[in-house]
């Protein structure tokens, strides 16, 4: 017996299982990270296809391809799939891969829960996407699921609620795992304030997730009981309050916005110092700024609701609080600029995406400040101006952060350098088309085009045409990304060194490329040169 146990113990150092067992029963943080990233990429194309349907219908005035019901299903599903299926899992995948490598831990703290939190996601999205084929079609009430409208959903309704519950479970478990890992498994010399910014950004994001995902679960559960169990939480006829739903939803929804951007802040804070060959400017104030943003994100939710009829004092409070967020966000932008200042920059693909993030996320930030001004927001609310605003923070913001991270760490994951020429081509196509797509939407909204409409008055035709062309180009350009990534995974391309880039800081560059299946089985010593602050 004892020898068998000893053998089993030695066996733990073997490589991955063969075939499907490796993935189905995965407990290795690298395998699970890979699965998260592949899942996210798949969902990115599913949600992207829906965006293509939307932009095709909006190419010219009049209805050409779809009916209004199906159009509304597309806008609703596009948002749900992109938010919960593409952006959030991508960040969790990056955390799985990189947090243990960056803090010198052998794996995530809770590997079996890690497996569970990933495998819930394909189930959740199978359920959600299957609603497209149900009587009455997929949910069409918008991703915000405002009652009473969402209660008019057909057979899809309980499936929608259940899939949201599952996504929430997955997120909460992922967040718990990340917090426990970061708090307990850091290399001995790594105090909290010595942690890399990507780890810091995820620590704060994980707390936000734990705080708000249960709120969303509560809100949608009340929708469920209103629909099936005779309650009237949100039904005015039964003494309920439809506006209360909006308050609860946005109490989740606004921190959710930061859940989708803080890890991107962390990534940019890793990428810029490497390619500027200079330490991150103001490491500690970056941490404080992240914390300030996270705190403020809880007290600004009603700025999504300036037209619901709030008391003046409420409007004033939410306007002030919202504007305050610009201060720590500004600190971050200025600190990144100061990091580049008097550095020695080169412009590989990850750096290009990080720089585009700086410029284009700032534009999303500017339109964010504009929307905080209540009288003007009354005009912007639910118009294409808002569509432009949040796509600027989510696409060249969150998505560009993810793309920068993939190009930055891909050689570490696969052991191969990606094709730099193709990477740069992908960058330029993506950046040009993202602006062609979303910049004209500012004009459309200001000129009076509401969002979520399948057809529009003819004076909006010109800019819609431009936006649609941009969207098609953007979609096609992403196929190039898949080609570049698959090439590396299939072992083509130059072998990567362990440091990959020019003397980057961080423990992940002390292990070989590709990173071995097991890393840091004994805690690493942090060389003094690796001190981050």
């Amino acid at each position, binding site marked *: 017996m004892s020898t068998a146990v000893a053998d089993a113990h030695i066996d733990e150092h073997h490589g991955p299982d063969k075939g499907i067992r490796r993935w189905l029963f995965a407990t290795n943080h690298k395998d699970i990270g890979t699965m998260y990233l592949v899942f996210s990429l798949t969902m990115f194309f599913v949600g992207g296809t829906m965006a293509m349907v939307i932009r095709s219908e909006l190419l010219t005035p009049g209805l050409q391809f779809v009916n209004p019901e199906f159009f*509304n299903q597309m806008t609703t599903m596009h948002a749900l799939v992109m938010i919960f299926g593409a952006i959030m899992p991508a960040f969790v995948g990056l955390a799985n891969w990189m947090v243990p490598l960056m803090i010198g831990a052998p794996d995530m703290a809770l590997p079996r829960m890690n497996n569970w939190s990933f495998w819930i996601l394909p189930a959740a999205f199978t359920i959600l996407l299957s609603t497209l084929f149900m009587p009455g079609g997929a949910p069409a009430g918008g991703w915000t699921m405002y009652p*009473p409208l969402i209660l008019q959903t057909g057979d899809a309704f309980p499936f929608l609620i259940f899939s949201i519950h599952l996504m929430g479970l997955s997120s909460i478990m992922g967040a718990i795992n990340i917090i426990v890992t970061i708090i307990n498994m850091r290399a001995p010399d790594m105090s909290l304030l010595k942690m890399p910014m990507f780890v810091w950004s995820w620590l704060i994001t994980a707390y936000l997730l734990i705080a708000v995902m249960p709120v969303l679960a509560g809100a949608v559960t009340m929708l469920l009981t209103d629909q099936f169990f005779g309650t009237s939480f949100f039904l005015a006829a039964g003494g309920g309050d439809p506006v209360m739903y909006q308050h609860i939803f946005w109490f989740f929804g606004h921190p959710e916005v930061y859940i989708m951007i803080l890890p991107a802040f962390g990534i940019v804070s890793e990428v810029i110092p490497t390619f500027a060959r200079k*330490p991150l400017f103001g490491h500690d104030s970056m941490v404080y700024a992240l914390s300030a943003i996270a705190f403020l994100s809880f007290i600004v939710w009603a700025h999504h609701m300036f037209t619901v009829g709030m008391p*003046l004092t409420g409007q004033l409070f939410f306007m002030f609080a919202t504007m305050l967020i610009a201060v720590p966000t500004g600190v971050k932008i200025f600190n990144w600029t100061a990091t580049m200042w008097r*550095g020695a920059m080169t412009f590989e693909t990850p750096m290009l995406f990080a720089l585009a993030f700086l410029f284009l996320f700032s534009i999303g930030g500017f339109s964010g400040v504009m929307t905080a001004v209540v009288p003007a927001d009354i005009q912007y609310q639910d118009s294409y101006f808002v569509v432009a605003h949040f796509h600027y923070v989510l696409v060249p913001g969150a998505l560009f952060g993810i793309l920068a991270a993939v190009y930055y760490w891909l050689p570490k994951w696969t052991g191969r350098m990606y094709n730099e020429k193709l990477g740069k081509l992908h960058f330029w196509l993506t950046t040009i088309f993202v602006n062609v797509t979303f910049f004209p939407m500012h004009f459309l909204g200001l000129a*009076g085009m509401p969002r979520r409409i399948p057809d529009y008055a003819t004076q909006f035709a010109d800019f819609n045409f431009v936006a649609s062309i941009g969207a098609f180009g953007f979609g096609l350009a992403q196929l190039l990304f898949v080609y570049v990534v698959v090439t590396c995974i299939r072992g083509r391309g130059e072998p990567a060194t362990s440091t990959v880039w020019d003397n980057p800081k961080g423990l992940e560059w002390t292990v070989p490329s590709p990173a071995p299946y097991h890393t840091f089985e004994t805690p690493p010593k942090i060389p003094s040169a690796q001190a981050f602050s």
Partner: protein
Amino acid sequence: MIRRLSLCVTGLLVATGAGADWAINMPRGVTELSAETYDLHMMVFYWCVGIAIVVFGAMIFTLVRHRKSRGVTPAKFSHSMAAEVTWTIIPIIILLLMVVPAAETMIKIEDSREPGLTVVVTGYQWKWHYAYQGENVSYYSTLARASNEARHKGSGIDPGSVENYLLDVDNPLVVPRGTKVRLLLTSNDVVHSWWLPDLSIKKDAIPGFMNETWFQAEETGVFRGQCAELCGMDHGYMPIVVEVVEPDAFKAWMDSEREPPPADLTTSNAR
């Protein structure tokens, strides 16, 4: 990006108040508050452009000057208390400069006292109902027939050939010029939102709630808007048209619309 922004700025200067196509800015509108809103919008926009010029300028400068291909050696500094305090304080001051005028306008927007006319607006899937309070006048306002015929898939009608495609109704809301009109908004089914850009009004119509807003149009004319809150299948097909007429014409119109005293069911309900 600077190029984009400057393009956008020059565009705004050229096209302010320009015609329909390629319109890129908010209308100045026909009420005192819509003009104030427009000015606030432009003030914040110009602040943003100013900040963008400084920040993007610094970024572009460093991108040009501090590149490895120029043979520079990277500096070692990694913090500066003075710099960080400066770029925390300055944004706070700028934000205060934006907030104060915004708050002044907000106080005016909320002051709906002493209206000259009150209209109850009720949202339905997918039309609007207007009831003039204290008058026996009420009616539904639905998408105009020409638009309705052209809007369906395979209708064979070119939307370009329909005048005010999707922005025309059978019965517009008629109001007198120079009178403070109070709107009381509610809904019969789901949440709608009554948006008229030229009056700078967007207010949700929510079942079980009575929301309040007001406007005083200073110019006559026909002004068009749409429902702004997703309300189901035909959300895109419930436009709003307001016709502002001279007070005399309004009186005459009201007299012709007024129903006989024993009002029908819809009227008494809506009131």
